[in-house]
């Protein structure tokens, strides 16, 4: 269900961007999502298609790219990937079920994942929350990359 909120955030942001940049027709929106949020792409696309109507996005397609974060422990310096903490992630999903904390808020990662070497929670993730990584517009037919 949380996918609907994410789609809402993406649509509103792009609609705003379009109005500021006088863009009338968006072809494609490229969205980056932290992989450990395990958002369901099908539901996200369905939500996007349902809510995009009556806007410069009404013909837009959603492209989802899952970002695998690289974590760095600020205590011992270890750099590790999601795969190194997959057991922690699995037990979290088991405990909370579908709407588990990192699904709703990837920024909570340091609270729920710890360094596999020293156990510290003082970790930083390189990729954070959802980002809009590119918008393709009708006018020029070329992809524009936006922050």
């Amino acid at each position, binding site marked *: 269900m949380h996918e609907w*909120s994410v789609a*809402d955030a993406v649509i509103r942001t792009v609609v705003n961007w379009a109005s500021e940049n006088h863009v009338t027709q968006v072809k494609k929106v490229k969205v980056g999502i932290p992989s450990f949020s395990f958002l369901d792409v099908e539901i996200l696309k369905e*939500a996007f298609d349902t809510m995009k109507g009556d806007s410069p996005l009404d013909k837009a397609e959603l492209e989802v790219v899952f970002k695998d974060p690289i974590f760095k422990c600020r205590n011992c310096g270890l750099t590790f990937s999601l795969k190194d903490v997959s057991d922690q992630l699995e037990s979290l999903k088991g405990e909370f079920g579908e709407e588990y904390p990192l699904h709703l808020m990837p920024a909570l*990662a340091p609270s*729920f994942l710890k360094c596999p070497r020293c156990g510290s*929670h003082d970790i930083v993730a390189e990729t954070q929350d959802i*980002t*809009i990584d590119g918008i393709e517009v009708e006018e020029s037919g070329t992809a524009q990359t936006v*922050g």
Partner: protein
Amino acid sequence: MEPLRQLAKEKLRGKKAIAVMSAKGGVGKSLVSALLALSLRGAVLVDLDVHTMATTKLFGLEDKLHEVTKNGIEPFKLGELGVVSLGGIVKDKYVVLPGGNAGEVMESLVAYANLGDANYVVFDLPPGLGDEVLTLERLTDFFPVVVTTPSAVSVKVVEYVMRYLNEREKRPLLVVNMAYMDCGDDKVARPFGDLKNAEDLAKRYNAPVVELPIDPSLESYIGKVHEYDGVVKGKVKKELVPYLT
């Protein structure tokens, strides 16, 4: 482009945001937030004090998880009041976050919450001047309610918050919690000191002051603060709410 921030800003647009702040813990900030939100018509209380999550304890919502629908994270309903808390996302887990993440978590909480047609959003902020205050400034033009007790140390510490708000050209309301106890026969006791320090502070920053009494019976409403209708709530309704409506 930051989708989270965008959505959070839009969710707050057209609503009056009230930030209940303090420089010090233990001054009853969460209780003031709760009673204030309960006294406003159509309010959502957003608990941003992720380290204590006193709000969930006041309302007896520990271990309850927020329902998530197509409209977002559904606030807990207590009569007309909606309550949103990180506690409803993380249960009884501790929350330890680097600074940047704290702001992001807060933006997520506002962005994804279903604030519906609430007129007021009351934010219970953690003590001090941290990421939560800066994040809230990015999201909305909030009205600050600064909570202190009469004690000299509390007033001194709260001055930092007053000075900061003053520099940001915000005019806060100063609430002196636990200011006095009604002893009958027009007598009041002031066990935490007289009002002089707080009044001087308010004068210096041109802020109105509201005093809230001590009510020993409040203790028995921890876990069901929404059922409380005693003297403190009466004062909040009569003297605090008019500044905000």
